[in-house]
């Protein structure tokens, strides 16, 4: 039948897509996006933002690069003021007023205790340039503003929670620029940008703060997880991947998104880390932009920027001071920390920096419950097991109700056999007659589609909660699992380490960890207890699912595979329990019937 062939083709395509996803995840080639000629010949002056009022230049992404490239050599190295608190260590680069050196001191790169700490911000000269910077764009031509080559003077450091540092620069024409930097005991830097005008004329400037990333990070690359531009602007979450920002910005002269926002925040998110800029006061209105530019040299020249500026240039009368206050968050996306910033500093939806997704209303409470159990038990893996049991228990009445009629089904067996005999050549007819029989006898072996469909978002939410939160990072489980957020390191293809080679170097398919195999077996057993789809092609696919899933999940974080295996095991146990219970009940009913007969 033609239709069946079509469906088989669809099924095959889906299978290929799933497998491609697995391969793609670990072996992601750089996105081959065409760089339009317009972007390659980037202008040397700040890119005028067409959206900005009166054509005033906003902090263009290309400007500082050009300036720096032309005016290098034969200058003393830039002076620095160090930053120290309980969570970060780094320094302020006094040339250009930027924080381009920041290490998260409480996070190691790998499990080894002597491994380097996680570095978030790094200098222009490094492989992964990433920094926060503050500055001004001149709106009236006469005013001289600092640029990326300006050497600032600073009050004594280091910048600590108790010691703010003020950078200042006199433009020699009557205006003094100041950036007062302070840091809390976590990841928040506050910058108060001031211009004191002691000249005779009013000056007009546009103050801005920006986060800039001069490389494209190699992301975890999971479809389920957002990495790239993110922010809550005008009370709405605006997420944009690097590739879609590139496409959008290429079409709109460098600006991928441009919006005024009262409060809110915007920045770059990695799986676990965030750098974001936001107004210091929650009711303050600023203009936020996501930008992209290319400095040439193909994809390696890609530059990304999130900035916030005042909606209009500020005009400062002689003797007056113009001011803008912003904050920069640069650190780990710990759920409780983001929540506390949201409460204390009234940052709109700051917790959405964690990619909780569409099921936010389920995922976040699930995470909070998991985290609570984790604090009680001390092991995140155990917390996953316990929480899954709790969720299963909540759905138990539904499952129980479904199997309740199992016992009475037995009584119908002779009638069913007769039906099957009568319509031997017409399985469809058997189906419909059986359904009619169920109805007249008021029994039905299936639980129904609704209870199953309700459970899907719930278990997806738990999966997502485990996936996106940093709290599972570097948390051990029993045996060979030392990091629940990383793939299980064991591999069937080198006999779990007996053979001295790493098969993954030949193909990413050659990774089959022990926990994935356990998951595959539990899924297989669980399927045996489920009714197979009536359609033979679908039934075939159904049989292959455990194998497909075993391969698909092999590279996933171990915590997720353990959760999946445990969830399957619980389903099997539940089904087994209910079936045995009903059988016992049927037996009891039978024997009491017998004794009643014997008595009469």
């Amino acid at each position, binding site marked *: 039948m033609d239709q069946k062939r079509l*469906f088989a083709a*669809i*099924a095959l395509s*889906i299978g290929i897509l799933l497998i491609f996803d697995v391969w793609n995840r670990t072996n992601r080639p750089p996105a081959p996006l065409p760089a339009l000629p317009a972007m390659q010949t980037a202008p040397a002056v700040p890119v005028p933002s067409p959206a900005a009022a009166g054509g005033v230049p906003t902090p263009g992404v290309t400007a500082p690069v050009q300036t720096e490239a032309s005016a290098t050599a034969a200058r003393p190295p830039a002076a620095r003021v160090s930053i120290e608190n309980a969570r970060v260590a780094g320094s302020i680069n006094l040339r250009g007023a930027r924080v381009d050196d920041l290490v998260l001191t409480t996070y190691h790169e790998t499990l080894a205790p002597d491994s380097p700490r996680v570095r978030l911000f790094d200098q222009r000269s490094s492989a992964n340039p990433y920094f926060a910077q503050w500055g001004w764009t001149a709106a009236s031509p006469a005013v001289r503003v600092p640029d990326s080559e300006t050497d600032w003077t600073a009050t004594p450091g280091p910048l600590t929670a108790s010691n703010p540092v003020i950078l200042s620069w006199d433009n020699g024409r009557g205006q003094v620029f100041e950036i007062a930097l302070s840091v809390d005991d976590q990841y928040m830097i506050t910058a108060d940008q001031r211009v004191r005008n002691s000249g005779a004329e009013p000056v007009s400037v546009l103050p801005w703060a920006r986060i800039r990333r001069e490389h494209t990070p190699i992301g975890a690359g999971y479809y389920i997880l957002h990495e790239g531009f993110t922010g809550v602007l005008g009370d709405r979450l605006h997420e944009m991947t690097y590739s879609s920002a590139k496409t959008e910005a290429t079409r709109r002269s460098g600006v991928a998104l441009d919006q005024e926002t009262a409060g809110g925040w915007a920045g770059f998110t990695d799986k676990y880390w965030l750098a974001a800029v936001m107004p210091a006061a929650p009711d303050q209105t600023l203009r936020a932009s996501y930008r992209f530019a290319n400095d040439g040299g193909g994809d390696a020249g890609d530059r990304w920027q999130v900035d916030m500026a005042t909606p209009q240039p500020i005009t400062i009368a002689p003797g007056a001071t113009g001011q803008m206050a912003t904050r920069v968050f640069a650190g780990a996306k710990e759920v409780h920390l983001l929540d506390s910033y949201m409460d204390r500093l009234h940052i709109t939806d700051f917790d959405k920096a964690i990619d909780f997704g569409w099921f936010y209303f389920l995922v976040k409470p699930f995470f909070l419950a998991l985290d609570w159990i984790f604090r009680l038990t001390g092991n995140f893996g155990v917390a996953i097991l316990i929480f899954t049991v709790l969720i299963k228990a909540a759905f138990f009445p*539904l499952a129980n*109700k*479904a199997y*309740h009629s199992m016992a009475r089904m037995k009584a119908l067996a002779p009638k069913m056999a007769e039906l099957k005999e009568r319509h031997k050549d017409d399985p469809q007819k058997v*189906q*419909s007659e*059986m*359904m*009619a029989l*169920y*109805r007249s006898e*008021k029994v*039905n072996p*299936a*639980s*129904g*589609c*609704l*209870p*199953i*469909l309700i459970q*899907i978002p719930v278990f997806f939410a738990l999966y997502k909660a485990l996936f996106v939160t940093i709290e599972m990072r570097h948390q051990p489980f029993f045996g060979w699992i030392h990091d629940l957020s990383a793939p299980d390191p064991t591999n069937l293809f080198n006999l779990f380490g007996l053979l001295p080679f790493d098969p993954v170097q030949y193909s990413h398919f050659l990774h089959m960890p022990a926990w994935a195999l356990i998951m595959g077996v539990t899924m297989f057993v669980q*399927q045996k207890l*489920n*009714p*197979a*789809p*009536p*359609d033979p092609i*679908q039934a075939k*696919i*159904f049989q*292959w*699912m455990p194998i497909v*899933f075993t391969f698909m999940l092999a590279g996933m974080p171990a915590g997720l595979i353990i959760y999946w295996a445990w969830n399957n095991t619980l389903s099997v146990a539940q089904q087994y329990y209910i079936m045995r219970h009903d059988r016992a009940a049927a037996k009891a009913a039978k024997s009491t019937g017998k004794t009643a007969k014997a008595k009469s």
Partner: protein
Amino acid sequence: MTAAAIALKGCVHAYRYTLRGVIGSHCRFYPSCSDYALEAITTHGAARGALMSATRILRCNPWNPGGYDPVPLPPKG
């Protein structure tokens, strides 16, 4: 058939060849909910068909006896 109807039916087919393989078939009715959805969308159009399918799924729970439940015929005219 409208584009919306084709898209919806595509979703149902996609479900049958992916998710159904994972969660199993648990329908209490004949025809099954996915068969019902395909037929309802074909005979009643995307909007009405989708609505009918949604209410059918809501009915497909342990408190409903289930059984034979065909798609109603479209009104004549």
